[in-house]
């Protein structure tokens, strides 16, 4: 019986006997005494909620191994009490709802309406967690996962969280795909919706008619996946392998689009290329080229998504390029391979996991993107917007939305499947425990040329887009009145000095503070859960691992609109009733953005020799310590990537949160969308500029706090190689 197990048993009792079992009562005004003891599960159980009393049984069972210590039966008792406790809590939670029994069977047996209860609160959450951990500790004592309680508990916790915040909502919305509008099972209706011509039609090949929305989405996704991977690779190579003088600048510039709310890029593109855009006007006035609407549709979405998602590919690939052991390239050179051959046969194949990951991210991001198709789509329909309009549009057809999201899901999962087949079972370990001295090879000339030729014009284009955004924030009305002004900022961010202190009078402050708060909480959580999951997936072997991996990546495949609706469906009623809180926003962000952390973590971890962890374990460090002292320092690029990504996504996401925000927790993006709808472009762009600035600060802070990975390789400038020089200079 370890001290940790004992602690969790105590916490289980605390959750049941002391903390309030139920969440906030919406009708009564709770006094402080309600929050301790009197609101606890035990007191409720003794008064009227008899269904809570059985939970005492597993809690009492935990006392047996806690008091006596006979090694052998300990694990059995722990497993039994943990499993029973969880089962009891789940069963009572799902069978008794706000309006009595939840299923027809129970109603007929015990009569209507039956007892009622509210959503679970802190007590229930703590007790459930304790049961889960106790169960996992029991399994560890049985020798699961090499007897490592940290590992089993992590697996259990991640599975439970994914179950609650991914599978539960998804099953809620998918259930409606097979149901008609009254909630009855209707498979035929599903088939009819699924085979609809507007989804699968191929008319654009033979005539002028439009193709099905599924083909549109797929085509766009492939284009964007290839494009972002190529551009990301070019940037990554320039940043790590060349003497290019402005690579720092390049790096900052390539990160800019990721910190931009997606529709802002769309807006900027319209301001440049639209019918009355700057460039179109100039071309018309100077060269007589007629204005056109070409930006609306595939070209516009494609350019906007390239701008938006190249940085993700860059962040993934830079870690991979840095991780490639120079020794391997040197080995190739000594085998008389020219630098071009080396690049083609050694460097590039070693980047395969990274390239595959980058492509996958670009593809999936493109499928799920909502803001850009909304702004720039024109007649080119994609699945995500189609789903949105099916839910909120005139049709209000949840079933159709669900069918469309099943198709979207199938595409994404197909991509993962392909990636797996392509990478195969090859080993890409390049950071081994054997110290490795070697200098990274300079890029072959033509690769360097090609990289610069693609990356630099793109960087200039990005710059142009941002100049337009910046100008837009400081002029009265873009396209019509170029008088410089600060009025947009004043409207949004005015601070008044009053006699009782500063008063944040600007209209944007509320949503700004809420956004920063939610993003600030969500980012570290996301990175932690994501990297922990990556660690479990790459470093541990347990049954059901594939299903586990699937579960962690599933949330990424679901477009934000669907996530938003599914969260509303799943979490608006007991047992888990959290809509309208900041918590649901945080959880939504954590599980939507976690897959990036998982992917980045896996890509980096698969390059780090497993025996490093094992060495740490045999030196008496537990898994948790090993994580902290050995794995995390080597994972720094992945930590930065996932922290930055999750913070930024939490600041810029629109699609999912548009369903979840409340007056109290209004997010910046939804506020900006509101301004756009009201036609206040200046204010919208000004607010976006402010957001971009805040995110820039955050990224610099994250880079600074996490620091860079030290691999102890010599840098190319240190010719003597005597002094230890930090390896990565970028």
């Amino acid at each position, binding site marked *: 019986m370890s001290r940790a197990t004992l602690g969790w048993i105590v916490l289980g009792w605390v959750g049941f006997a002391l903390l309030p079992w139920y969440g906030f009562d919406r009708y009564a005004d709770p006094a402080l005494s309600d929050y301790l003891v009197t609101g606890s599960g035990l007191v409720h159980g003794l008064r009227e909620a008899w269904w809570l009393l059985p939970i005492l049984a597993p809690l009492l069972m935990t006392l047996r191994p806690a008091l006596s210590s006979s090694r052998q039966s300990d694990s059995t008792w722990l497993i039994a009490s943990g499993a029973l406790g969880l089962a009891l809590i789940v069963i009572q939670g799902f069978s008794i709802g706000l309006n009595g029994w939840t299923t027809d069977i129970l109603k007929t047996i015990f009569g209507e309406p039956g007892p009622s209860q509210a959503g679970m609160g802190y007590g229930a959450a703590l007790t459930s967690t304790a049961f889960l951990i106790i169960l996992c500790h029991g399994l560890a004592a*049985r020798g699961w996962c090499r*007897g490592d309680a940290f590992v089993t508990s992590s697996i259990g916790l991640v599975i439970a969280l994914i179950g609650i915040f991914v599978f539960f909502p998804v099953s809620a919305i998918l259930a409606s795909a097979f149901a008609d509008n009254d909630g009855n099972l209707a498979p035929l209706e599903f088939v009819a919706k699924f085979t609809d011509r507007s989804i699968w039609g191929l008319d654009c090949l033979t005539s002028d008619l439009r193709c099905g929305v599924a083909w549109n989405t797929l085509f766009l996704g492939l284009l964007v996946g290839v494009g972002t991977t190529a551009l990301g690779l070019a940037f990554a190579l320039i940043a790590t392998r060349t003497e290019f003088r402005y690579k720092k600048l390049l790096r900052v510039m390539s990160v800019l689009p990721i910190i931009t709310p997606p529709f802002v890029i769309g807006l900027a593109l319209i301001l440049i290329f639209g019918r009355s855009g700057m460039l179109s006007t100039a071309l018309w006035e100077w060269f007589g080229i007629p204005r056109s609407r070409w930006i609306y549709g595939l070209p516009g979405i494609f350019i906007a998504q390239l701008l938006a998602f190249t940085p993700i590919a860059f962040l993934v690939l830079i870690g991979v390029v840095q991780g490639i052991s120079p020794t391997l390239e040197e080995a190739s050179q000594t085998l008389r391979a020219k630098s071009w051959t080396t690049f083609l046969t050694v460097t590039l194949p070693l980047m395969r996991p990274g390239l595959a990951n980058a492509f996958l991210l670009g593809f999936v991001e493109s499928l799920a993107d909502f803001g850009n198709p909304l702004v720039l789509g024109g007649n080119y329909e994609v699945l995500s917007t189609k789903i949105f309009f099916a839910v909120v549009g005139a049709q209000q057809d949840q079933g159709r939305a669900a069918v469309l999201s099943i198709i979207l899901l199938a595409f994404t999962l197909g991509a993962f499947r392909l990636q797996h087949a392509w990478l195969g079972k090859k080993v890409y370990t390049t950071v081994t425990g*054997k*110290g490795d001295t070697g200098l990274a090879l300079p890029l072959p000339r033509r690769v360097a040329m090609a990289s610069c030729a693609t990356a630099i014009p793109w960087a200039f284009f990005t710059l142009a887009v941002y100049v337009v955004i910046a100008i837009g924030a400081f002029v009265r009305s873009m396209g019509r009145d170029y008088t410089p002004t600060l009025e947009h900022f004043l409207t949004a961010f005015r601070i008044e000095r009053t006699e009782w202190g500063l008063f944040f009078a600007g209209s944007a402050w509320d949503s700004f503070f809420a956004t920063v708060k939610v993003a600030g909480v969500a980012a570290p959580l996301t990175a932690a859960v994501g990297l922990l999951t990556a660690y479990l997936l790459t470093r541990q072997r347990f049954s059901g691992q594939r299903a586990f991996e699937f579960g962690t990546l599933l949330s990424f495949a679901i477009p934000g609109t669907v996530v938003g609706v599914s969260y509303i469906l799943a979490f608006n009623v007991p047992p888990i009733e959290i809509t309208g809180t900041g918590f649901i926003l945080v959880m939504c962000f954590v599980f939507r953005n976690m897959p990036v952390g998982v992917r980045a973590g896996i890509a980096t971890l698969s390059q780090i020799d497993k025996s490093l962890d*094992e060495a740490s374990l045999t*030196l*008496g460090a537990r898994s948790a310590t090993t994580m902290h002292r050995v794995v995390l320092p080597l994972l720094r690029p992945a930590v930065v990537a996932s922290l930055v990504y999750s913070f930024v996504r939490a600041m810029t996401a629109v699609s999912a949160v548009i369903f979840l925000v409340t007056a109290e927790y209004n997010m910046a993006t939804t506020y900006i969308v509101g301004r756009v709808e009201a036609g206040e472009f200046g204010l919208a762009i000004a607010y976006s500029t402010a957001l971009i600035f805040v995110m820039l600060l955050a990224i610099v802070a994250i880079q600074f706090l996490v620091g860079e990975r030290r691999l102890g390789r010599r840098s190319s400038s240190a010719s003597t190689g005597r002094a230890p020089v930090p390896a990565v200079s970028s």
Partner: protein
Amino acid sequence: MNQMTSPSTLPHAPASRKQAASVEFRNVTKRYGIVTAVSDVSFTIEPGQLVTLLGPSGCGKTTTLRMIAGLEMVSEGQILIGGKDVTHLSAADRDVSMVFQSYALFPHMSVLENVAYGPSVQGIPKKEAYAMAMEKLSLVGLNGLEKRAPSELSGGQQQRVAVARALVLEPQVLLFDEPLSNLDAKLRRRVREDIRELQQSLNLTVAYVTHDQEEALAVSDRIIVMSNARIAQTGTPRELYEEPADLFVADFIGDANILSGELVSVTGPLALVQTGGASLHLPHRGMRPGPVKLAVRPDAILIDEATSSSGAVAGRVRKASYLGTQIEYEVESPVGDLFVVQYGRKEPIAPGAQVSLAFAEGRGVAIIPSA
């Protein structure tokens, strides 16, 4: 050197811990899905002994080592370290350290930080941990290199850092996973002697995995020969060499000529065996009269240019290689082609020459019991 100031602050270790511990496997089986990597293996490593797990690749020796470390969990059976059941303990909870084949030095830490890692994760103050690390570094002769990054050391130096890091917690059992495989041949001999010396002077229990039989013979107190997930034979180097239990061991440990013979009669401990006209008195090793197999070491065949002596086998030299300290021959004979090593002769016998062959009865010839 033996008097190491053991830090009594180690949380889970008793204060007086110069005691080496035994390692015991009881009917241990390890399966990966349908593949059985280790099948029903039992053995004991006595305290203070260096025991080698020897075998061809894929025989389960590394899996066995990793099960001692706790890096793999057994599917069936029990593991005891120092008489205590550790079967379900995780690697971090076992008082066992390991030197990895790849050394597994943490690339983001200096040499000193690497070595001090063990004590510092045990919660020992940094200063003390560094002192312990410095002591072990000087033990392996790496003074002055502690500030370097692992990548700035040579292969041999990195290996010594790995040893120092494994020693720093003064574990009950020290494990080596093919520690010499990344070193060049000259260095290999020196490092293996260093390891042996260290083991004896610190009185450590060591389990050592290798596929190199010469290395195993050189360093071990006892050798466990594994083949196809099972133990083929356990014994001292000499027992294995002189009394191989089966054909596999006879062939794997040292070179051996396998000859067919006829056991004629048993008198006391000895048996009379005839092979190719030669008669030999050998320990019978439980065999009854009838056909037997003999393992004959190359240096137990005495080669003579004079083709006369009775009771000898006639042969013809096919190849001869001059190796300085010895000369190696391939000889055709009625009992089969023989590999013969001859010491202390200046000039090799020319290929094609007729020779007579005799067997040294005292050593190097043995009946293989189970063949």
